[in-house]
């Protein structure tokens, strides 16, 4: 019996060795200097680490559209690759380090939970540029990148507030981190701006990507009386649940009207390609600030609002567009006082607006949010 096992092992080892021997050039390439990739013949190598499959039609799908936009824009000058379904936590460190080890010039880690692994690996590969999406830790070669998603969140809240009859809006949310809390608060304020009696009920799923869990959470909210479903998840399951129940929804990440028809009123949309292209252009020119904390607004094109469904009245559309113009011009912002939290404490005084630092660390809910 023992002999048999060793035979098996021996065979596996031989096969592995035989395959491994000649493979030096299949996967490894010489690392080009950060920022110098475009000057040489060697294409600049860009890697994307995704938390969900690219077919999620949401968060990861949008990032992959950004990757495709990079390929379309730069052609042979840039070579991109991606890995999907990478769990947050220790496993992601292996993947990120593997890309760095293979000599990629730019590694884009697209989920909050990749923050610590990105920082750890970046310290070991000072010549590699890292971009972490949605985090708050920077280093000399780690830039953070996000958008002022709270602005389109607010605008989509206006559409939801105008649509509801029960005055209860349901919100399927992943994790109680500032990014998500900010979105819920902005959405609630937007809804309350057209209908002060709005209550927003939140269900936490503790996952970015889990289609059945997302769907069940939406169904629970619908059963509790919500007639508009908004979400901060990776898939379109909550919106599908809303459509199945005859309710309406607000999308997130992508325009999904092709999937759920006019039941989706509108929703915040990401367009990562715009920023990815500009980062790569600057890296090629050698002008990129590799430790930047980028937080783009509506005018940058990184974030926008999906087209309105026919179910959104012209009056509401006009009001939303007017508000959007105010955000774009900087005339006003979402978190301008007076704002009271859901425990009755005044968080933002009248006549003042929150600064970026306090928005990035937001951990309280506005009045009207129940979780």
């Amino acid at each position, binding site marked *: 019996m023992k002999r048999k*096992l060793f035979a098996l092992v021996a065979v596996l080892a031989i096969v592995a060795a035989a395959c491994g021997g000649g*493979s030096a050039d299949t996967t490894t390439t010489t690392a080009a200097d950060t920022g110098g990739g475009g000057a040489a013949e060697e294409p600049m190598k860009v890697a994307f680490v995704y938390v969900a499959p690219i077919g999620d039609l949401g968060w990861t799908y949008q990032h992959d559209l950004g990757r495709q936009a990079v390929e379309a824009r730069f052609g042979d000058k840039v070579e991109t690759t991606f890995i*999907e379904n990478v769990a*947050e*936590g220790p*496993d992601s*460190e292996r993947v990120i380090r593997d890309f760095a080890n293979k000599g990629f010039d730019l590694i884009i880690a697209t989920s909050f939970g990749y923050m610590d692994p990105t920082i750890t690996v970046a310290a070991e590969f000072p010549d590699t540029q890292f971009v972490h999406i949605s985090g708050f830790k920077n280093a000399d070669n780690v830039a953070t990148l996000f958008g002022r998603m709270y602005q389109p969140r607010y605008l989509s809240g206006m559409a939801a507030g105008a649509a509801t009859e029960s005055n209860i809006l349901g919100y399927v949310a992943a994790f109680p981190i500032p990014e998500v809390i900010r979105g819920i608060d902005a959405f609630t304020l937007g809804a309350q701006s057209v209908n002060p009696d709005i209550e927003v009920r939140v269900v936490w799923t503790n996952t970015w990507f889990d289609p059945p869990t997302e769907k069940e959470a939406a169904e629970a909210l619908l059963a509790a009386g919500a007639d508009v479903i908004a979400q901060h998840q990776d898939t379109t399951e909550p919106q599908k649940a809303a459509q199945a129940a005859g309710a309406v929804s607000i999308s997130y990440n992508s325009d999904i009207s092709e999937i759920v028809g006019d039941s989706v009123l509108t929703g915040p949309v990401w367009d990562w390609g715009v920023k990815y292209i500009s980062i790569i252009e600057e890296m090629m020119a050698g002008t990129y600030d590799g430790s930047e904390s980028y937080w783009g607004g509506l005018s940058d094109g990184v974030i926008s609002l999906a087209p309105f469904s026919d179910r959104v009245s012209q009056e509401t559309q006009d009001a939303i567009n007017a508000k959007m113009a105010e955000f774009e011009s900087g005339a006003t912002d979402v978190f301008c006082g007076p704002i009271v939290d859901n425990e009755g404490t005044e968080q933002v005084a009248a006549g003042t607006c929150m600064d970026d630092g306090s928005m990035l660390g937001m951990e309280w809910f506005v009045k009207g949010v129940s979780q």
Partner: protein
Amino acid sequence: MSFPWKFELERRLEVSRWVSWGVPTLSVLAAFFFGGIILSLAGAPPIETYRAMAAGAFGSISEWADGNFFAVTETLVRATPLIFTGLAVAMAFRMLFWNIGTEGQLVMGAIAGTWVAIYLPDLLPWLPQTRWVYIPVGIIAATIAGAFWAFIPAIMKVKLGVNEIISTLMFNYIAILLYQQLYTGPWKDPEGFGFPGSAQFPEFSWFPKFSEIPVLNVLSGRIHFGFIIAVVIAGVLWVVMDKTRRGYEVRLLGENTNAAQYAGISVIKNVLFVMILSGGVAGIAGLSEVAGLGHRLQAGLDVGNGFTGIIVAWIAKLRPLSVVIVAILMAALFVGGDQLQISLGLPSSISSVLQGAILLSVLSGDVFTRYRLKITRVVVGAGVVGEEA
């Protein structure tokens, strides 16, 4: 009309040398062959894909020449929890005690290790805050927690006759829910901006990396002390199970419970002994993952190491030293699988499909080393021709 042939599996009385070498060889080749078909269907050239996987798992000669052992170390890192759980499963299965609960025992070990790292320093401020104290204390705590989680189903089995397959399986879910509750609730990092996960462990409770240990520091990267513990435990269990009276009793119980009992061997004592050992080893796996890699209790611990450990133990024929080798090969399959996406742009699901095809072939090949396929012709209406007994 009935099928004219009858297929039967007949136990081989003697496993010849040819069979013991030939069948596993063939089944591995078959595995790569079937895997190759799947890859071709997915539009990937099989040979090149296998090369990329092997290079991803073990590195290539030119990388080794540069002193770059990144791939090997990552494979060993991935193998570490599988060695622990494989050993844990092997111990229990040897006496036909079906411990399906190593996943939960692993998680309990991680919880205990987290408690030691984060809460013990405040509780016992006089305890020297060095690795020489905190690593042994962590190991003891994780062992106790894992053993305790295995002890409950074991005592339920011997005292109440509760089926251990069900109870150990269910105990996984209890442990996993407790773990999720802790890192999303009471143990959440107060400075983590609400993201689930405990606070980071203080450095004196981290397992040292190889790069910090003399001699071993030829290997850089994430490989850590947990791998050493796993290999040492494999050696110890090999001695205990193959060279001691207790090990002999356990084996005898597994092979023939009645005969063993008749010979005066206590079932209860041995079940408890084995399950505490098994659970304890699985518990250290959990500690090794949190103290060696993430340095915090967070999502990603319940990724099926306990269940993969069952496959590892089974392929390794429940032999401790073989578990180490099989766990490393299994880890190579996981780590190499990343390359399907990174280098070849295949969807992530293909790597799972390929792993499944390879494991299925290896495991089913095993059947043919122990059994021979007997084909007999059935004459319609006249029963089976040439049937023996």
